[in-house]
Structure formats: C-alpha cells, structure tokens
C-alpha cells in the first residue's frame, strides 16, 4: 500500500544494473499506482532507458525486484512481461521497416495477448486484423483515407514512427504503458496532438510511465514525477515539488535543458 492507500500496480524495489564497472541504475525504489501517469526525468545517461529495460525484461537487473500486480516479474522474458500487459515503446524506434505501417500493427494484433484480451472488432482472421490496425492508426492520427497507413514503415518520418511505437503497445490492450521519450524529435504541434491521446489512454484506465525531456508537456499530464541522476533516484513527488527540488534544479535545469524548449 502506498500513501494514498492504493495497491500499487508496479513496485520496483532496490533495482540496480551494472554494465561492467558502470552503475547505470543504482538502488532505485518506487511504486506506481493504477491510473497514474508517472513521469521519469533525468539528464541523458542518467539510466532511464536502462531502468525501463530492466522492468520490461529486456535486461536482467543486477539486483532488486520488480513486481506487477503483486507478482514477481524480475528476470522474466520480455515477451512474457508484455503478455502480462506491461508494454513499452523504444526510444530508438523499432518498426518493421519493410512492411506497410498498418501491417506493423497486425503483428501485435496476432499476439496471444491480443487474441486473449483484445476484444477487437472481428478479432479473427486476416482481413479483420488489417481493419483493426487501420482503426488504431487512425486513433493515433494517421489520416485513414490518405495513403499514409499503407506506406512502407521505412519511409515514414519520425513523428509517424513514434506513433507506430505507441500503436504496437495499444494493440496489446496494455495495463501498463511505458513510453521512452515519445515526444523527443517531434515538433511542438505534433506533441500538442499526442498529449490528448496520452490523456485518453489514461482515461481508459491504462497506467502510464513517461520518460520525458520535455518537462512542460510532461507536467501537463503527469500526476507523479521521479527524477534520476547518475542512476540514482534524486526525488519523487508531485510535479511541482519535484521541479522545486534543489538537486533537480542543479542536475537538470541548471544545464538549461527542458524549459528552454
């Protein structure tokens, strides 16, 4: 139980990850409550992506544990964790470059989880998944009647690839959605169009963890924020508490990152 008396959906306890001598993540503990939009901030190289990789099974933590809905998931295979409903986007986008955009979503729609909990329209065969994929893309801001959803993913600009990353997660009907810098590399107007989408997903009951450099946009949606520096947790709390924390100002804002954008 946390301070607000809710049972956390994710509990990270004493998590550490070392690469040889480099301590990328060091003894990080935090909890995420259901329905939270939990922000993680920190300068480049502060261990945010490594932390996500440890939570989602793409890396094995050196020490510490990860619990999802009270269940130990530390060291599970990534596809098992995704299957349980903890999904993530990749900071370096990983589309299927040779396939059309909508086919990129047919893959997660063909996964055991999507078949089990998806409840997508039609659900079953070939044609249906293609339609559902285009539905999801439309929700993500791909113009349905344009040619964009049918274009080869390798030819799409960054903004669409970021949405495709989100689409892969949404197709799995996740309980937890972890976004690794989905706003970076996007224009202000593109971000403005994505923020309502994040809010909509939150309102659907999906718990969201957002790693962001763009503090202004992050603070519009996040209700809790944690700051990392050199792999260690510096502070966690309400957005305004965090921003006022001297260490955050020094480590993060002192370098003029974030608010300058």
């Amino acid at each position, binding site marked *: 139980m946390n301070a607000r008396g809710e049972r956390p959906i994710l509990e990270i306890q004493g998590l550490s990850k070392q690469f040889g001598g480099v301590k990328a993540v060091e003894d990080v503990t935090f909890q995420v409550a259901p329905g939270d939009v939990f922000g993680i901030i920190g300068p480049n190289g502060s261990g945010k992506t490594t932390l996500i990789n440890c939570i989602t099974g793409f890396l094995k933590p050196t020490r510490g544990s990860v619990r999802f809905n009270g269940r130990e998931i530390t060291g599970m295979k*990534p*596809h098992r964790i995704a299957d349980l409903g903890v999904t993530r986007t990749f900071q370096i986008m*990983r589309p299927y*470059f*040779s*396939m059309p955009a909508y086919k990129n979503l047919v893959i997660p729609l063909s996964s055991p989880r999507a078949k089990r909990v998806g409840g997508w329209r039609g659900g079953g065969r*070939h044609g249906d998944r293609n339609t559902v994929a285009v539905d999801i893309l439309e929700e993500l801001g791909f113009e349905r009647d344009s040619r964009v959803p049918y274009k080869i993913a390798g030819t799409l600009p960054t903004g669409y690839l970021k949405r495709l990353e989100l689409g*892969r997660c949404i197709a*799995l009907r996740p309980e937890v959605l972890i976004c690794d810098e989905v706003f970076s590399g996007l224009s202000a107007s593109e971000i403005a169009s994505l923020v309502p989408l994040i809010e909509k997903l939150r309102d659907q009951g999906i718990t969201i963890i957002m790693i962001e450099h763009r503090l202004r946009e992050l603070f519009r949606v996040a209700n809790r924020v944690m700051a990392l520096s050199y792999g260690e947790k510096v502070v966690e709390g309400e957005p305004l508490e965090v921003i006022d924390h001297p260490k955050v100002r020094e480590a993060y804002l002192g370098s003029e990152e974030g608010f300058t954008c």
Partner: protein
Amino acid sequence: MAQARRKERIDRGIKVRSDSIYALSSWEEIAYLLGPRALLIGGFLLLPVVLLPSPYWSRVALSVCVVALLAVSFDFLANFVGLVSLGGAFFYGIGGYMAAVASTELGLPPVVAIPAGTVLGAAVCTLLLVPCLPLRGIYFAIITLMYPLFMTRLIEATEILGGTEGFRGITGFSSRWTEQYGLIVVTLAGVFALRRFLAEDAGLVIRAVKDNDQAVRASGINVTWTKAKAVFVAALFGCFAGAYYVHMYRNVGISSFALDLSIMPIAATVIGGSGTLVGPLIGALLLVPLSELLRDFGSLRIVVYALVLTGFVVLQSEGLMNFATRKYQQFERWVRV
C-alpha cells in the same frame, strides 16, 4: 480521325488491389496476374510427358524438384526468417533416413513412409536446431554446415542406421507416373502454399522476426518459438525431398548428407532470385540440367559451373525472378483517352 491514345502500365490499378483483395474487373487483368503462374505450373506438369522418351532426363527432372525443394527451404529461412542455413543436406539426409527406416524396418508403403519420414524428420531437425536459434548470421550458418558432417561421421563410427552400407530394399513406387507426378505436384503445391502462408498473419509474424526481433518480443510474442515453427516448415521441405528420393533409388547411404545438397540449392536461389520462393524453382530448373550437361567436361565441370555461377552473380545479381517481375510489371498497353 484516329482516336487519342496513350500508353499505360498494365499493372497500374491491379497491384494495389491484388496485394490483399481479389477483386479484378476483367479477364485481361486476371490473365495478367495468373499468366506467369499458369505457365510455370503447366510447364512443370508437362515435363514427365515431354521427357517420356528419355528415362535419364526424366530422372533429371526429379532432381530439379529435389534441388528446388531444398532451395525454397533455404530461401524461406534466409530471406523470410533471417536464418542463413547451410544445412540443406541435413534436412535431406534426416528425412531420407527416417523414410528408409519407416520403409525397411516397419514395412510401410511409400504413401505412408514418405509423409512419416518428412514429418518425423522435420521434428528431429527442429529439435536439434532449437539450441542454435539464438545464434545469428555466420554462427547459425556454421552450425548448420557442421550438422551433416557430424551425422556422416557419427554413422560411420557407430555403425548405427546401417553404418556405411545404409539401407537397401526400400519399397519403390507402383508406376513411373506416380513417381514423377507425386514429386512434381507436391513441389509446386509446397511452393505456392508457402507463399500463401507468408501472406497470412502467422507468416507476417515470421517475417517480422527477421525485420526486428526486439519489437516482436515487445509485442508479447515468443521469438524462439516462432523461429522454431519456421525451421520446422523449412525442414519439412528438405526432409520431404530426402524421403522421396530414397524411395526413387530404393536405398539410402551417408551420401545423403553430401555437401552438394547444401550448396547447389543456394546457387539455385541466387540464380533464380532470393526472397521470391518461386525464383529458386526456376534456378533449379536451369542449374540442375546445366550441371548434368557439364558432365561431359569431366573434371573441368566444376570450373565451367563456377564460371557460369560467377557470371550470374556479377551480371544478374538480383536473380532471374526479381528481374523478370520488374520487367513484367513494366509491360504497357495502349488505352483510349
């Protein structure tokens, strides 16, 4: 006055629709799409009739099918799954031995022994390859190259599976027509079924593994399991070739694991066009008879063979099928404006 006319590419408008939906409006369009396929299938089906006077060339036609099956298996693994397998001979040999055991030890007729050898052989191959699935590129290639060599030495040393003698007295086919059409029909059906399978969602997932396995993991799909299923499918093709061939020659020996059986299909794939599945069929159709004709050159055979291959790779590196597809799609017709 003459009517205004302009040139238009025939595939315009067909391509978009034909990729997923089959709603073609005219017989002309249907002919355009199905023509090449019909030509290929018809050609293969006519082979036994055309080659009737020559038992020798009839057998060569069946060797074409065997190499084609192994080549399709290679093409599928390399270009759709991302596993470069040099182990065609492994699939072939295991399938052959399994079928031979089914025939000689259990006394099963070909109609049972061949499918049994195919499926059991593919299962065995897959089980043995599963530990290697996390390997990539050259490492997987080397392991698959080692397996047939390993099998040869193992059989020699331990005298299992008939030792160096192999198995004799395998039940043959009831007639020459059964023998010929059995292999040709299954080869064609296999290739087109595989193309169809790859267009389905399950096939798409396999191709996704090649594109980006991390994204597949993040989609909650077990990559190793997916690869294992793909290896099983590829092994079915190779094992079937082996199982069928031992029934044609009515014996099996360690030569079933010969290196040629791994190399020739790769050459056929390169010539025919990688990543097309039909290309390897065409590659085998050219390469196997060529290799037979070159027998007259005696020891120079390999030299000529190598020159032809090199020439192909240098001058036509995309492969015949890719070249032909590109040209075919550029066919134009006159339309009234």
